[in-house]
């Protein structure tokens, strides 16, 4: 690649003059043909070899370079008649409206011209925009155009209209034979529209003196107004519009070439007709056609112009279409480029690798390479790799050598391996395969926050998917229903080092959006830990040691050997879990399973929901989502903040192992049996719902009698609607509560006579209560009652005239008629309920679809507005112009990552630390909201947005909460 290094001083935007176009042109194109029968470019045709060549076997007739080397040269077409450039229709209109019909001077008097010129020069000097001033000029002139005569020649003015995009129309006043102005009865002058031809427009623009052009915002040094009307058209080089040879040997031309052929054909016909003295009408028709072709050549989506189409009916992609939009040159090729050393494949879970790792298929590891400098410590290993070649895993694909200052790249092949190894010396670069421990960048779109791209350590694994630890699913918002992810391999040591310290997964356990962990346990990881640590769960000592071994807690740098001594008794799950905790960890909090009893019994909680950790020993409470779940894990939060990311990473990795042991000991399964409640309960629920429906009917009766007392500020109808919604809402909630009474995890307390370990029998409830997956609402909707369906935030209204379905009377207001679903999912919905449920569900789907596109657009604009802001050493936020945006970051100068749920410090935590047990009395331990607020809100949102990324998967799950 040849390159010229120059410093850009400034950029000037202007128009090309016809002379400039002719000057840069190497050939005048006259024939609307491309190749002759033998496939050679036709002289003066659109593929003339002076325009450059693509085929490497040909030589360019202008510069003499081969195809591929020659960058191409412009040609030109002399247009038989001028045409207006589509891009400037508006500007031409504005300029003509501001200048005299006769003399072409700007409609300002000399003093005004001087004043504006001076002001503009001042602004230009200061490097500021003159846009506002130019707007003022246009405004003043526009007002004068219809009301006054020219201040320079005194001529009457004719108004100028535009029909988009390029038809310029003069509104001519009508005079009678005596030269008197003709008027309508009401006194407005009688006018006639006259279509200006491009030649006339050009003449008018030509009359504008340079000084006047300047106040109109056109710098005559780089752009004369008349250049907006084309007399000569540049023809882009063939490299810009290469022809493609199809498999059949047929040649297919680029859309631009097609369009240029059209232009040339009409241009030739126009010339012939003009030369032959054809009637004015025919010439004008051809001229209009020429204007159409040139217009669509520039922009095939101009409003008011029918797009030019291919024979197949497909609209042509012309110049503007190449640049515009998402697939255009700017957004697709300049802002977003494709890169080498990257890979993409489907992801799948692997709880056996660390959160810092990523499983890379061997196939990919052999394709993407790491450039490694040969030195005395790695030469043997690299020689081995070269001998393995490109097809055996820890191999190498290329070797780069520098000989006499010239860089040479040698491909490692079967027959040259020995030779390459022999010649390998220090300083050479071996492009070796990716291997275990390499640092790579891992990413899932849409990359909405910084945790969407994190650095992982490679684990080369068999099969063809990327493997990732389940704890990193939340930051990527990934699941395994067909999601794909991208991997990028660093090519320099600096980038690797930087990524390792800044982008590693463990450095991102805490989210900067809220001061809590975003990487954490999900699903079985949570229910597993609960099953392991719930009260009464014990394992035989040898089983315990097996679990310790399996969880890599033997010889673990963080586990003190003193905890691993034999106890000569069964181990409790809590003892096992305590091995993961730092020995000086002290905390207590309410677990997710807490039922928020009126008065908390703390340590004596019957649900084992009050967690107490004393000197690293879990003495009370079960581990669940509130302990180490993503978005809300309190123990995890404390460990990252107090003991650092390495310790937190180990905690997550080892707890995954332990949770798997826990879940395997008990086993976990779910089925509709979990949502079974006794017959009596169903009867109670039904009776309750029936009663509510009767109450609704009573309300309606009262309303119809006109006796319903309206709520303050509401009409009777609104009051009725609100009351009904309220009654039905309460009814569903009560039905749910009744069902919940039967939906227990198992036996309630240790006093129950039978084996406590076996007592966990409802795994659906375990998952819902511990926060692993689903909610009690989901379960009660399955068991008891689905409840009111909503469209547009209220009961269902739409459908037939005055009723939702023909099954109801007109104006019926009852529960069922407006979408109340009395049935449970398990008992099944009747057809009417099913229909209403589908209505509510569809609205949910449409909402998500609309919301994603809108929030995506908002995100794009926010990011472009904020991307150049930076935090400086003095704590202020500045932009690239170094002006101050905020005197102190976030006004409190706090890094939200290290904050406590957005707050700078947590006083309660401080008290506990200083006062120890005495703190309890001082604190409102009951009303603590550490981090929980933000975290759980985030989580709700995530669940709501979950079914969004649907490039390939189409999920039809929906909820009607």
């Amino acid at each position, binding site marked *: 690649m040849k390159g010229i290094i120059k410093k850009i001083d400034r950029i000037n935007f202007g128009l090309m003059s016809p002379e400039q176009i002719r000057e840069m042109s190497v050939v005048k194109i006259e024939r609307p043909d491309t190749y002759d029968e033998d496939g050679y470019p036709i002289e003066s045709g659109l593929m003339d070899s002076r325009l450059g060549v693509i085929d490497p076997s040909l030589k360019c007739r202008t510069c003499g370079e081969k195809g591929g080397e020659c960058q191409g040269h412009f040609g030109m077409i002399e247009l038989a008649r001028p045409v207006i450039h589509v891009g400037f229709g508006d500007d031409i209109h504005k300029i003509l409206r501001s200048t005299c019909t006769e003399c072409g001077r700007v409609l300002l008097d000399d003093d005004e011209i001087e004043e504006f010129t001076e002001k503009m020069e001042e*602004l230009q000097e200061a490097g*500021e*925009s003159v846009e*506002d001033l130019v707007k003022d000029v246009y405004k003043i002139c526009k007002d004068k155009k219809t009301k006054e005569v020219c201040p320079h020649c005194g001529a009457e003015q004719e108004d100028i209209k535009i029909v988009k995009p390029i038809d310029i129309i003069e509104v001519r006043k009508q005079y009678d034979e005596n030269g008197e102005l003709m008027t309508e009865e009401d006194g407005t002058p009688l006018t006639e529209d006259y279509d200006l031809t491009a030649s006339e427009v050009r003449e008018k623009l030509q009359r504008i003196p340079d000084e006047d052009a300047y106040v109109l915002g056109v710098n005559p040094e780089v752009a004369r107004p008349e250049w907006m009307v084309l007399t000569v058209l540049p023809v882009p080089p063939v490299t810009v519009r290469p022809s493609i040879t199809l498999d059949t040997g047929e040649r297919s031309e680029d859309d631009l070439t097609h369009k240029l052929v059209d232009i040339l054909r009409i241009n030739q016909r126009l010339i012939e007709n003009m030369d032959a003295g054809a009637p004015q009408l025919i010439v004008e028709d051809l001229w209009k056609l020429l204007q159409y072709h040139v217009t669509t050549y520039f922009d095939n989506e101009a409003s008011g112009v029918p797009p030019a189409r291919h024979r197949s009916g497909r609209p042509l992609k012309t110049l503007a279409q190449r640049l515009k939009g998402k697939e255009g040159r700017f957004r697709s090729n300049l802002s977003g480029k494709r890169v080498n050393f990257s890979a993409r494949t489907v992801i799948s879970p692997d709880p056996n690798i660390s959160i810092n790792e990523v499983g890379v298929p061997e196939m990919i590891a052999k394709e993407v390479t790491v450039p490694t400098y040969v030195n005395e410590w790695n030469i043997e290993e690299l020689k081995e790799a070269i001998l393995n070649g490109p097809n055996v895993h820890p191999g190498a694909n290329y070797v780069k050598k520098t000989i006499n200052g010239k860089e040479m790249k040698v491909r490692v092949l079967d027959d040259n391996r020995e030779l390459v190894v022999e010649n390998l010396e220090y300083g050479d670069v071996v492009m070796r395969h990716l291997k275990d421990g390499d640092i790579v960048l891992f990413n899932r779109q849409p990359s909405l926050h910084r945790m969407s791209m994190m650095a992982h350590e490679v684990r080369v694994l068999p099969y063809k998917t990327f493997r990732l630890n389940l704890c990193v699913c939340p930051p990527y918002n990934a699941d395994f229903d067909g999601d794909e992810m991208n991997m990028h391999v660093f090519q320099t040591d600096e980038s690797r080092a930087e990524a390792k310290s800044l982008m590693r997964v463990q450095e991102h356990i805490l989210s900067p959006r809220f001061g809590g962990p975003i990487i954490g346990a999900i699903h079985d990881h949570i229910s597993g830990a609960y099953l392991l640590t719930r009260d009464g769960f014990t394992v035989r000592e040898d089983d315990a040691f097996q679990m310790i071994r399996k969880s890599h807690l033997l010889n673990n740098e963080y586990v003190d050997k003193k905890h691993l001594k034999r106890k000569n008794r069964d181990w409790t799950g809590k003892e096992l879990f305590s091995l993961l905790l730092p020995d000086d960890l002290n905390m207590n909090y309410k677990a997710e399973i807490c039922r928020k009893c009126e008065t908390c019994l703390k340590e004596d909680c019957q649900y084992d929901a009050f967690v107490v950790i004393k000197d690293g020993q879990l003495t009370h409470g079960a581990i669940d989502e509130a302990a180490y779940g993503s978005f809300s894990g309190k123990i995890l939060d404390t460990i990252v903040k107090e003991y650092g990311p390495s310790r937190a990473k180990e905690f997550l990795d080892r707890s995954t192992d332990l949770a798997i042991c826990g879940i395997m000991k008990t086993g976990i399964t779910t089925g509709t049996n979990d949502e079974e409640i006794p017959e009596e309960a169903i009867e109670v629920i039904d009776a309750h719902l029936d009663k509510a429906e009767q109450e609704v009917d009573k309300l309606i009766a009262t309303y119809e009698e006109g006796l319903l007392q309206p709520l303050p500020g509401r009409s009777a109808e609104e009051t009725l609607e609100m009351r009904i919604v309220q009654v039905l809402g309460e009814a569903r909630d009560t039905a749910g509560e009744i069902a919940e009474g039967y939906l227990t995890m198992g036996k309630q307390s240790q006093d129950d006579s039978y084996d406590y370990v076996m007592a966990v029998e409802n795994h659906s409830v375990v998952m819902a209560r511990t926060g692993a997956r689903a909610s009690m609402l989901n379960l009660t909707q399955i068991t008891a009652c689905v409840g009111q369906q909503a469209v547009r935030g209220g009961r269902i209204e739409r459908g037939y005239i005055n009723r939702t379905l023909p099954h109801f009377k007109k104006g019926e207001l009852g529960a069922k008629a407006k979408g109340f679903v009395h049935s449970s999912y398990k008992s099944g919905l009747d057809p009417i309920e099913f229909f209403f449920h589908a209505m509510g569900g569809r609205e949910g789907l449409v909402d998500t679809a609309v919301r994603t596109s809108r929030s995506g657009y908002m995100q794009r604009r926010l990011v472009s507005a904020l991307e150049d802001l930076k935090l400086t050493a*003095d704590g202020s936020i*500045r932009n690239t*112009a*170094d*002006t*101050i*945006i*905020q*005197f*102190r970051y*976030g*006004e*409190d100068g*706090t890094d939200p990552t290290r904050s406590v749920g957005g707050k*700078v410090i947590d006083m309660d935590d401080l008290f506990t630390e200083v006062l120890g047990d005495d703190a309890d009395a001082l604190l409102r331990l009951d009303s603590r909201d550490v981090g929980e607020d933000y975290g759980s809100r985030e989580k709700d949102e995530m669940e709501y947005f979950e079914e969004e990324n649907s490039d390939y998967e189409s999920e039809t799950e929906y909820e009607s909460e």
Partner: protein
Amino acid sequence: MAFNILNHSAVPKHEILSDDEIEEIFADVDYDISQLPKIKVNDPVSKAIGAEEGQVLKITRKSETAGIFVTYRLVSGENNQK
């Protein structure tokens, strides 16, 4: 009598700094007052307190994160874009 916007609860306290105050406040910083955020002379608040181009306003407002936050703005002319 026109409505006084300065009494509105959403309008924080704006004060015009004297030259001495400016010198004192911006003595130890590595930027000059032209780099401050701007407020237009024809901003309703500027007009209400009678600020002139080139003066610096001290704005004391409530902050969700910091409790009370003090910021400064340079009064700038009409045609100044930033």
